[in-house]
Every structure is written in C-alpha cells, then in structure tokens.
C-alpha cells in the first residue's frame, strides 16, 4: 500500500514538472515581447531595457524557469499586468464562484444520472432504458453554450422567470444567488449527467451479472434489497473514478457557461486573460488548472485504492 502511494505521488510530481515546463515554454512562444507589454505603449528603448533588467528577462531561459518555479512553489505566481493584482488574490476571488457553480452542477448531474442509470440497467431493454439512453445521447450531443442560449431565450426572454445573467454573492442574498446560478449549473450539469449515466448503467449491468448478485437472489432476497444493498454500492466505484476524470471537462464547461451567463468566475478569467493578452495571468491560471487536475486525480486514485484493494497498481480503472 505504501509503495503504491509513493509510486502514485512520484508520478504526479513528474507530471507537475512536465506541466510547469510546458506552461513556461508555451507562454514564451506567444508572439510579442513581454517587456514591451509591461512597459506600456509610450516607453522608449531605455525604459524597455530597464524593465527587462528588473524582471530578469535578460537571464538565460533555464535561470528564468528556475526562478519562476521557485516563486511559484512559495505561492507567488506574479501579478496581473492589467489590474496589477497578485495572482493569488485574483484567483482567490474568482475560484469560489466557479467552485459553487461546479458543485451545483455536480449535484444536478449526480441527482439525474445515478437514479436514471440504475433504472436503465435494472429495467434493461425496456422503454425506461431506451428513454435514459436517448437522453444521455442527447446530453452528449447538445452544445452546452447553445443549451444555455436556449434556456435564456425561454426562461428569461419569453417567460421572464429568471435573470439572464449576472452574479450575486451568496452571502448577500442566497435566493438571488441561486436564481442566477440555476441555469448555468443546469447547463454545466447536463453534459456531465450524460457521461455519468452511461457509466452508471454499464457498471450496474456488469455488477448485476456477478455471482454474488445471483447468490443474493437465490438466497431469497427481494430484488429491491439486492439492487439497493448489494449492486448500487459496488457499481458506483468506477463512477467515482469517472467523476475525477470529468473535473477537467467540468472546468472546460465552466469557461463557456460563465461566458454565456456572465458569471465572473475562474472560467471567465481564463478567457479574459487571453483576450487582454495578460500573459502572467494566462500562465498562472493554466498552471493552477493543470496542477489541480493532477492533484484531484491523485486523490481519486488513492481513495479508489483504499476502497478497492484489488486495484493497486496499473491504473486499470483509468479509461480515456
């Protein structure tokens, strides 16, 4: 067990190292001179040189990389060019909004997907199964930004029930916050629900054909007890793994959803930083995104191996 943890952690460290190199190189490949951007439009050559010296842009690239990593490890990811705010501060104000959105989306997705997936598997090849599979296929195929636009069209423009955009902090007015979050969360949740439902159905079907389920039936248990006490619990293990892998998709979805519903979260920050050519911000945001993905999956892997000792090494559960 200890060996497994060490191995997983080592792989994550290597991955993080590669990520930091990629992000660092990537940002340096963006056309344009960062010193010129930092200096502003009306700086002369001497001014640009001074900035280059101040930020160490004349040093060899490996030195620049090491310095950047050193600062990043101490939690200093630099400042936004545009707002002059520190990365940490910017992220700390934006991230909770996206976490709330993602959490609500997750609740909606799990609330739809698990019951529907279990029902489809238990009543396999019936109308229920076909309806659930059809809905899942539709959920994968519908572009979430279009779904968002259609929801705005229906609930905001036609019916006038919900505000189309904007954000109210939850501590100011929980009700207004929810009224503005429900559509984005639904949009973000549908795609995830579609994927989760399929996975729940497949793994439930697999579990239901296992010997111990047959034993449970043959010892006279009611089918309700078999499904709820024996099957669901075991079939959810792979679903948890998929959930971890879907965190990236959730963030990608948040980028689009926040853009449509004008939610000032982390996803919108990414798009804004790209459009305003705020490179330190792009660099920091992408690094944080990728690192958290690695850490979440490390946690998923570890919790998974704790839940199911048969799968320790080999990452057999990882499905791409």
């Amino acid at each position, binding site marked *: 067990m200890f060996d497994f943890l060490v191995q997983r952690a080592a792989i994550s460290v290597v991955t993080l190292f590669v*990520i930091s190199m990629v992000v660092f190189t990537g940002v340096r490949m963006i056309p344009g001179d960062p010193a010129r951007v930092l200096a502003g439009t009306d700086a002369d050559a001497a001014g640009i040189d001074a900035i280059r010296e101040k930020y160490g842009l004349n040093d060899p690239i490996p030195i620049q990389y090491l310095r950047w990593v050193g600062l990043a490890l101490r939690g200093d990811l630099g400042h936004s060019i545009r707002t002059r705010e520190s990365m940490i501060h910017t992220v700390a104000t934006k991230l909770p909004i996206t976490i709330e959105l993602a959490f609500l989306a997750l609740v909606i997705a799990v609330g739809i997907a698990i019951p529907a997936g279990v029902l489809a598997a238990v009543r396999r090849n019936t109308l229920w199964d076909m309806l659930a599979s059809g809905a899942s296929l539709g959920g994968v195929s519908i572009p979430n930004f279009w779904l968002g*636009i259609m929801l705005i*069209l229906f609930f905001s423009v036609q019916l006038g029930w919900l505000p189309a955009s904007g954000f109210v902090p939850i501590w100011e007015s929980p009700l207004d916050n929810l009224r503005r979050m429900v559509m984005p969360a639904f949009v973000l949740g549908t795609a995830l629900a579609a994927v989760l439902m399929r996975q729940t159905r497949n793994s439930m079907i697999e579990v239901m054909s296992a010997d111990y389920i047959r034993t449970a039936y043959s010892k006279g248990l009611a089918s309700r007890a078999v499904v709820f006490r024996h099957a669901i619990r075991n079939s959810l293990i792979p679903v948890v793994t998929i959930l971890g892998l879907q965190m990236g998709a959730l963030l*990608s979805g948040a980028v689009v959803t926040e853009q449509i519903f004008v939610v000032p979260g982390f996803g919108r920050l990414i798009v804004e930083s790209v459009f305003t050519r705020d490179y330190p911000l792009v660099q920091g945001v992408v690094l944080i995104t990728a*690192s958290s993905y690695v850490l979440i999956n490390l946690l998923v892997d570890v919790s998974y191996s704790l839940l199911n000792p048969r799968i320790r090494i080999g990452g057999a559960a990882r499905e791409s």
Partner: protein
Amino acid sequence: MSPSTTAPSALLARAPSTEPSRVARAWRQARHRPASVVGAVIVLLFVVAAIGAPWIAGADPMQTDWKLVRKAPTLAHPFGTDDLGRDTFARVVWGTRISMQAGVFSILLAIAVGVPLGLVAGFYRGVLDQTIMRLTDAWLAFPFLILAIGLVTIMGPSLTNATVAIGLGATPTYIRLTRGLVLATAAEDYVQGARALGAGDLRLMSRHVLPNIVSSLLVQATISIPIAIIAEAVLSFLGLGVQPPAPSWGTMLNTAQQFLETAPWMAWWPGLAIFSLALSFNLAGDGLRDLLDPRDY
C-alpha cells in the same frame, strides 16, 4: 452464438469467400438499429451539404442587405436573416463545411500523432513507454478546452489553428487507447507466433498489431468527431476560431446572443445544426460499435 460455434466461424471469417455474408450480416444488424441508420443518413446529408454548399445554399452567405436586417423566417429566407441582412439558411449550409472540416481533420491529426506514439509505447515498453506516458499524463492534465484556448493564443485565431489545437487536444486519448490495445494485442499467440517465424518489429506492428486495433480506433473516432465539431463551435463562439464574416455556426451563435429578444431565430438554426450533426454522428457511431465490437453493452 454458443461458444462451440465461435471458433470455426472466426477462422472462416478470414477467408475471402465469406465476404458477401459479412455484408449481409451488417445489413441484418443495421435493420435492428434504425436509429443508427437514421444517424448515418443524416451524417451523409451533412456531407452532401458541405460539398454542395454553393448549389444548395441558394444565396450568397456573405451578401449583406440593409433592407433585410433581422427578418423573421419567410419563404424566400426559410431561416430568416441576420443582423446584416444575410440569409441564415445559406450561412448554416456553408457553415457545414467549416464544421466538417474542423471535426474530421482535427481527429485525423490526433490519430496521425497519437497512434504511432501509442504503438511505439505499447510495443517497446520500457523507458520509451515511460517517457511517452508521463508526457501524456501532463498533456491530459490540461482540460481539452483550456489546452485548445492556450494553443490558439500562441498560434493566433483561425480555422486551421483551431483545427490543429482541437486535434492536439484530442491526441492523448489516442495515445492512451492505442497503447492499451497494443499491450493486449502484442501478447496474443498469433503475434508471438509471427515473431517466432522471424518477423521484424515493423512488420509485426504494421501487419499483425495495427490491423487488429483499427476497429477500436474507428469507434473512438466516431466518438471524438462530434466532440471536435462542438469544440470548434465553442472556440469560434469565444472568438478564438473562425473569424467573421466567415459563416461558422459558433460565430453565428455569438452574434445571435446579442439579438435574442428581437431575432431569436438567429440562435435556433446554427445550434440546431450543431446538435443534429453531433447527435447523428453519435447515433451512427453507436451502431458502428455494435457492428465492430461484439462485446455486449
């Protein structure tokens, strides 16, 4: 099929004489899955629309007309007109080209890069495998869209760059998938047999391993293409893909969002087009998977 009959029929399937029965079997299966057939037909219709856009569109997708700004659908303009008086139907038809191009070419790129890497990693194992897989891990850590946005930032927004970005975003999936399939296939007796007969690495990979994993890759492609089509629409919607005035479904939706109250039809059709194209690909792909992959889901 009972287990006792599978072995001989699997052997027979290699013989060319059984080719017609294979087609017959495919047809028989297709009749049991009408939804997949409908999906495949709609995909074909979109292909026809993409190729025949100049003849089908009926109007110039770029032609602005100030007298026809944001007119609701009529017989002359079945999908209505947009904020510059352009015919929405013509723009949706021309947009098919862009979507198909981005969807298919990006996945071809992902296959061209991902399959060789996965093949080499799975076949040779060892240090090479470790290196490739650690790179893939890091690659996968960037969420698909974030990676695409980052790449487009570096390369600049255009259809070609969006296609490349989407393709590179989809590549790690193919590396992982190919490697896994190769690991399983290379251990099979027939590969070991061919090796014992003196076949070289290249021959083993190209003649014995690759043909046996093609169907799984094909199935994955039918899953990835609709994702890529939606991704292109998203990038264009965000302003990072196809640039106006080119008629991309994503850019059309971006514009439509500003006129939801006065011209909602501008938002209906491009989105409906993306949805139906992605849905048909997925339906057709489901059928293909049943056809190629006899495992029961």
